[in-house]
């Protein structure tokens, strides 16, 4: 029997956004300041997209 980690969709999406944003920031920019700024921008876009997609699905469902 295996005990799998149980997380909500939101937690999984935020965790995913965090790690992906860090890698995007480091690999696509040349200096630490730009890396941080672009990483933060990507994270904000991921989270923003998450809420927008959530509301679109809510309106489609109702």
């Amino acid at each position: 029997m295996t005990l799998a980690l149980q997380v909500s969709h939101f937690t999984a999406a935020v965790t995913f956004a965090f790690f992906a944003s860090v890698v995007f920031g480091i690999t696509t920019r040349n200096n630490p300041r730009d890396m941080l700024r672009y990483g933060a921008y990507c994270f904000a876009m991921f989270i923003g997209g998450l809420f927008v997609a959530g509301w679109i699905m809510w309106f489609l469902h109702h």
Partner: protein
Amino acid sequence: MANTDTSTSEARPILAASSPHMALLAPAIAWLIPGAGHLIQKRWIRGFVLMACIVAMFTLGLAMDGKIYKPNTGDLLEMLAFVGDIGAGGLYILGRMLDWGSTAITYATADYGTKFIVVAGLLNVMCVVDAYHIAIGKKP
């Protein structure tokens, strides 16, 4: 001619390639061990942060009971998932050798985990390309 060479080297002093062998070695090591391509080029912080992120994503994917895809000729999405998985290099090899991951995706969290594993591989491919760019002097 001499003037052109001098101005180029002065304008972009950080873009000198570290060594000819590094352009082959860095991407290979980066694929095998996430972040190691940066570490062997003395980009310590970047290397350790990338390593932490990719290993964490892969490990969380396994903890969520995600599936590690094998080479297959079935569904197109399964073939693409295998391509993503194999990007994780050493983690993928280790996972296959030790038979990690579930064999079937039976509930939602396992599906999230499967995506985490695939994306860990794809992010590692970005690290491989970045390590190569550092090695050839395209990036500081």
